[in-house]
């Protein structure tokens, strides 16, 4: 009995932390419709700033003159200001741009903030001070419970009440709720939304900062927090219903309680199998999210969004003769590379080819099929692990493994896609993220089969392909075929129907096209091609790790596609080449390559909201062929 109460209180403390981050994200999304990937970075910033503010001018032990709570407050305010500044300098200029470009811009902010933290606080984990007077624990039903966690619970509840009053009892709150439902109408009633948006960003960011700062006695400040927190916060927001603060509270509570009880119960014997519930905590929220989204597509307390267009897709056309010959020339040049370039270039080019295929497959999903995936790395990783395991565990020859691995990814895509295509827009994107995270954590934890966090080593090509240039030709051929195939599909009758479905789903329904089924097929096709890219990657590196299906790789894929431009077929290839090359050159010359890349991304978004290839096309009036 008493242990149940303790587990419950543990859950409440976790819920309080989750709620603070998620409430801000939900508010920001509700009003501005911006999916703010940088929200986790703001949390990370909160914990770092609190570390410094509390310890500022302090002695070797104990907080400085500002005190613990002063430091927490300073951190929340500073992070709120950072959020407001980001909104005013960057996001305000791109509210009119397609949603995915806004997303890209916030990725840029993620990269910049990460390197900012690296620059200021260094790469080491920083363990912050404990709250004065709250280091101990209190006895609850005979069991010790940390005093600080009780305070955390109280703060979470107070913030919830304060937010509720703010939203219910003030004119500002009414405007926020009205704008969450129909911001255009709020504008037509004479409300200047500029400051409403800035204020919402400031508030939401300050909540993230507060959430981070309050964790300082519980967890170290570290650079990986940004993406792990954003994933958690997304899940909470999506489960609760995007834009709903009470929903965020409810979802945070459910998820945190389930996690807490998983840890509390420990091992469980079911039908002779031992299930380790604590290990489940890595995925449990994503499982909850998948269930909720399938049962209630708009979250527990959310409402169906208005018709949302994630972005305008392009209208692919067959190549014009001039472009076709240019393409052949590029291919010929690529084929000649091993004779004219050094080994390093060849290795870099293999990477570029792999990621070009990966990005092209993601583009196929996002452009022609109109489905943005935030978890495309799952299929890349399944391909990579499929290839490695077929060689290592099943004893296949390398060539067979390379060609069979895409089918492993296809099977994964068929399974995950079956659920995903039932949703649309941001919700679909979130579900793809959830599945990717589930796949990642299975691979990460299944030590005996996948090698766990160490991954699998010694995945080399057969001897006749062992030289760099031989494998380069394999990569060139397979990636070229993959990209060519994707393009053939886009231009086929199926591709036309797919695009028609994307552009007017209702009409498609009316004339009897089974859009859901077509999108499912598209999901599988894209997954297969990503898997092929993953398999080629595995043999080119000789070893793989769970990073091949992690969120950062999914994010890289999105950046590549958006960098090149969603509306053009060559966009992802150009974007992948540029991204891979930039990452390679910049990373070799500075520790702060992420910030540089982020800065470039932000500049590109501000200068070319249509993507690079889209810009060139618009600027030089090339008609639909590039």
């Amino acid at each position: 009995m008493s242990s149940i109460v303790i587990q419950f209180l543990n859950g409440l403390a976790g819920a309080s932390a989750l709620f603070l981050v998620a409430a801000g994200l939900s508010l920001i999304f509700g009003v501005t419709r911006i999916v703010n990937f940088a929200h986790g970075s703001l949390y990370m910033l909160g914990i770092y700033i609190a570390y410094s503010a509390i310890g500022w001018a302090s002695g070797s032990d104990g907080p400085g003159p500002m005190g613990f709570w002063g430091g927490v407050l300073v951190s929340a305010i500073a992070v709120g200001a950072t959020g407001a500044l980001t909104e005013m300098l960057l996001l305000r200029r791109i509210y009119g741009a397609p949603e995915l470009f806004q997303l890209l811009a916030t990725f840029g902010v993620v990269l910049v903030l990460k390197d900012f933290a690296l620059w200021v606080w260094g790469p080491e984990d920083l363990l912050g001070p404990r709250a004065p007077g709250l280091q101990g624990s209190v006895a609850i039903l005979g069991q010790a419970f940390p005093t600080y966690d009780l305070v955390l619970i109280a703060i979470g509840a107070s913030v919830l009440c304060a937010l509720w009053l703010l939203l219910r009892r003030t004119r500002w709150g009414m405007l926020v709720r009205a704008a969450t439902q129909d911001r255009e109408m709020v504008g037509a009633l004479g409300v200047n939304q500029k400051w409403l948006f800035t204020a919402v960003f400031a508030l939401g960011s300050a909540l993230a900062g507060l959430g981070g700062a309050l964790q300082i006695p519980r967890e170290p400040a570290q650079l990986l927090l940004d993406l792990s927190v954003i994933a958690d916060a997304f899940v909470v927001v999506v489960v609760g219903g995007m834009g709903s603060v009470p929903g965020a509270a409810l979802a945070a509570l459910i998820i945190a309680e389930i996690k807490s009880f998983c840890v509390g119960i420990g091992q469980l014997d079911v039908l002779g199998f031992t299930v380790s519930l604590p290990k489940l905590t890595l995925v449990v929220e994503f499982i909850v999210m998948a269930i909720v989204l399938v049962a209630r597509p708009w979250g527990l307390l959310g409402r169906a969004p208005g018709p949302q267009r994630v972005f305008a897709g392009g209208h692919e056309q067959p190549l014009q003769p001039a472009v076709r010959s240019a393409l052949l020339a590029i291919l010929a040049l690529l084929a000649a590379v091993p004779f004219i370039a050094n080994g390093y270039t060849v290795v870099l080019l293999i990477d570029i080819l792999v990621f070009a295929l990966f990005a092209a497959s993601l583009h196929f999903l996002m452009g022609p099929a109109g489905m943005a995936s935030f978890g495309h790395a799952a299929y890349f990783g399944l391909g990579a692990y499929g290839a490695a395991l077929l060689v290592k565990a099943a004893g296949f020859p390398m060539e067979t493994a390379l060609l069979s691995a895409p089918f492993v990814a296809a099977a994964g895509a068929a399974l995950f896609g079956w659920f995903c295509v039932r949703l649309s827009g941001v919700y679909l994107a979130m579900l793809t993220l959830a599945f990717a995270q589930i796949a990642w954590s299975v691979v990460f934890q299944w030590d005996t089969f996948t090698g766990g966090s160490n991954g699998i080593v010694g995945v080399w090509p057969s001897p006749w392909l062992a030289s760099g240039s031989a494998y380069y030709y394999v990569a060139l051929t397979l990636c070229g075929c993959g990209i060519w195939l994707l393009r053939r599909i886009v231009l086929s009758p199926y591709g036309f129907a797919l695009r028609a479905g994307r552009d007017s789903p209702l009409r498609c329904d009316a004339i009897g096209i089974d859009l859901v089924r077509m999108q499912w097929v598209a999901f599988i096709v894209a997954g297969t091609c990503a898997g092929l890219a993953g398999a080629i990657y595995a043999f080119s590196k000789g070893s793989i790790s769970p990073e091949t299906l992690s969120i950062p790789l999914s994010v890289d894929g999105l950046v590549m596609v958006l960098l090149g431009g969603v509306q053009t077929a060559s966009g992802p290839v150009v974007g992948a080449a540029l991204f891979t090359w930039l990452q390679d050159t910049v990373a070799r010359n500075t520790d702060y390559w992420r910030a540089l890349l982020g800065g470039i991304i932000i500049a590109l978004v501000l200068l070319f909201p249509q993507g690079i290839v889209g810009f060139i096309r618009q600027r030089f009036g090339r008609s639909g062929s590039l």
Partner: protein
Amino acid sequence: MSMAAMLSARRLIAYYGQAQILSDVSLDVASGEVALLLGRNGAGKSTTLKTLIGLVPMAGGEVVFRGERIDGLRPYQIAQRGLGYVPEDRRIFTDLTVSENLEVGRQPARKGLPAWTVKQLYKLFPNLAEMSARPASQMSGGEQQMLTIARTLMGNPACVLLDEPSEGLAPVIVDAMVAAIKEMKSQGLAVLLSEQNLHFAEDVADRAYIIEKGSIRFCGGVSELRDNDSVRSACLAL
């Protein structure tokens, strides 16, 4: 046209994507006047009103409101200059209560214009008074229509664009709409009323424009229109 036009639009052009919806719309509304915009389904009535309030970008033409060019301004800027817009699909904030909906519409009073209070509006629409704390999601269509008009009046506009306020409503409610429009008129507001229900509209309107395929085809007094069967049958679905 009229000497003291409060709102006058000249040769409006507007597109949805590639499709040209408005090709030549010119109209004037004066203070204390109700001008009628008649037309078949899809003729471009709603698009005209949306273009005037700035929700649909103008591709050509000009709009002068109270002596000032307003084309190219953002919707909130146009609304802040005293142009009120009542959308066809009402766009009530269903998460908010009736009184909160009114609050969202509130703008400061303007010099020389009637300043509406919640109390006055509840008098004009007695149904709303009884349900001021009710969530707007739990209102009938007619009640929602009253709320959307009241919400716009909270902004103390000089001119109101009303998009088919009688659509799909019971006769009693339509009577309430007539009373409300007459009240606005008597307060000196200019009203541009888009309608298909001629019986309702004739009751309150002074002048009429007929729009067809995005161009104004007829302009004249309501009595003129009543007597002119050929225009009526040519341009309206009666």
